[in-house]
């Protein structure tokens, strides 16, 4: 009997990830933002939509950071501090950043899921079936790539309906937010499709795929039981990198006024709101700008760290 190879640890990638500064800092950033979004109502005494009288100066300018507000009428503390000041309508900026994280991250992640779903399916089918299927799918991908992302997103967003969704109990959900992640997903899948196709081609040339065919496995079984699990590490990395893109595009579209409708807070829309105050009340733009930057940086670092850990032979 041949000597066994040293039992390599199948979870070795986790160890590599935990020793990777890039990946860890990305993970910390992303985790902090996700926690802030989840715990938003407990982190602040203010209401994100409430305009406070003391939030505006007598001249109508946003209140400066540190302004104290009496919330006792609404059952809150008597002296709540606006740590980052107020926005142009007298709403607490920090509160809107926290609640804005909910919308911006949710849209970013949902758009990523849409993009990854479409891109991975197109890439898998093109890379596995080759021939006409590949020709058709990849030319379609190339066509999508020729249209500038922002133009396509604006065009798509204007086509989708705007009537609010009824959630029951009289509550409404703005359709624009739903449209936003569909649109962002639809313009972000092409890069995913190309990379997944390449990876599927590589896996498809391996003899284990031919062995599965020789055993009589059908296409569906080979594609989803054999190939997909081997492509999954690539999909995970792409998921993180794509989220950075979708969050950025969400901020861009909301800034242009196509994304999240008022009064819902979202980082891009808040930058737009704060634009006239660039010189007089910088915090209106700095706050949401830094948040968006942290999210994009976090997901990029996380993706790079995952790539280093899952595929250490192809360091980028």
């Amino acid at each position, binding site marked *: *009997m*041949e*000597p*066994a*190879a040293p*039992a*390599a640890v*199948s979870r070795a990638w986790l160890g590599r990830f935990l020793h990777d500064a890039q990946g860890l800092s990305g993970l910390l950033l992303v985790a902090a933002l996700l926690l802030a979004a989840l715990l938003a109502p407990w982190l602040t005494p203010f209401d994100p939509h409430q305009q406070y009288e003391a939030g505006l100066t007598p001249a109508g300018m946003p209140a400066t950071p540190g302004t104290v507000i009496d919330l006792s009428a609404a059952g809150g503390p008597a002296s709540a501090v606006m740590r980052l000041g107020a926005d142009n309508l007298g709403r607490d900026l920090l509160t809107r950043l926290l609640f804005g994280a909910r919308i911006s991250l949710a849209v970013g992640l949902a758009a990523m899921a849409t993009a990854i779903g479409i891109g991975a399916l197109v890439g898998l089918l093109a890379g596995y079936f080759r021939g006409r299927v590949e020709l058709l799918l990849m030319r379609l991908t190339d066509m999508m790539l020729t249209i500038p992302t922002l133009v396509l997103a604006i065009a798509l967003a204007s086509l989708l309906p705007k009537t609010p969704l009824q959630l029951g109990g009289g509550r409404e959900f703005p359709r624009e937010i739903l449209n936003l992640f569909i649109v962002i997903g639809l313009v972000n899948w092409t890069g995913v499709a190309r990379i997944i196709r390449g990876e599927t081609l590589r896996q498809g040339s*391996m*003899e*284990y795929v*031919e*062995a*599965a*065919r*020789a*055993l*009589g*496995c059908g296409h569906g079984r080979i594609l989803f039981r*054999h190939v997909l*699990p*081997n492509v999954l590490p690539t999909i995970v990395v792409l998921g993180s990198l794509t989220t950075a893109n979708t969050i950025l595009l969400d901020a861009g579209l909301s800034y242009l006024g196509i994304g999240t409708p008022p009064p819902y807070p979202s980082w891009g829309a808040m930058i737009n709101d704060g634009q006239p105050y660039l010189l007089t009340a910088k915090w209106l733009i700095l706050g949401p700008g830094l948040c968006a930057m942290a999210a994009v940086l976090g997901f990029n670092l996380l993706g790079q760290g995952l790539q280093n850990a899952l595929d250490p032979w192809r360091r980028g």
Partner: protein
Amino acid sequence: MSDVLLTVEDLRVTYRGRDDGAPLRAVDGVSFELRAGQTLGLVGESGCGKSTTGRAILRLVRAAGGACRFAGDDVLRFDARRLRAFRSEAQIVFQDPFSSLNPRFTVLQTLAEPLLLHRRCGRSGVRVRVAQLLERVGLDPVWLHRYPHEFSGGQRQRLGIARALAVEPRLIVCDEPLSALDVTVQARIVNLFQDLQRDLGVAYLFISHDLSVVRHLSHEVAVMYLGRLVEQGPAAAVYQDPQHPYTRALLAAVPVPDPAVRRERLPLGGDVPSAAAMPPGCRFHPRCPLATARCARDEPTPRPVAGRQVECWEAGPPPA
């Protein structure tokens, strides 16, 4: 003599040439017979079409023409249903034990797949059967939950053999199953192949570029050059008295483990021509030491010479 299990007649496989060039004739009219429970060694240089031949017989690549009769029925004309049943009658063992096992499947998953796919046992009996298969190929049955990367090359090749055996096939195409292994490991795997044939009566189409390995295993040998079989016959006869100049050159190139023995060397000139630009006449003539004007003009057909089929104008006694 046992019954004929597989009869291949005039098998052809063509690949589309690059940039609409001439089609590449990878397998160009190959015929042979394989008897049940025996081994046919298919030897030749890399790129001569031997692996393609094996894959065409298993319908893993599409044949352009010819017939492959397996127990009487033409494999190339099987419909989807019959093909599925055929998948449990003929299997393949691959060259590279590293890429031929799915790295995300445990031993149990790898070996359970063929068993369940072809209903060789029920779900409850899978573990017992997988353990039996592991023992059959000389692996410890406690390794059910290990992944391929936890095994050595030789152990992985045993797993590949176990996967092929799971469906209890009558034919296994062995596509260079030893060439990725260390020499000491090769010997053990050769013994495993022989034990399995003796105990289970499985027939092998044993593809290799290593003539000494094939000699040890084969009952019959077929020598392939550029998509055609140039010489085929009983292994002992072909090895002791090769008739085709190509076979002679191949055998002369095999190192002999005895420094006292000096053998005639027949160095071949040049490289194997491209199958896309086949030379006219005999496809071996540009490299052949015996070539005449006729060889450059007319394509030879197989002739019986010294108890075997040889495809050469100059071999054996001159034709009447």
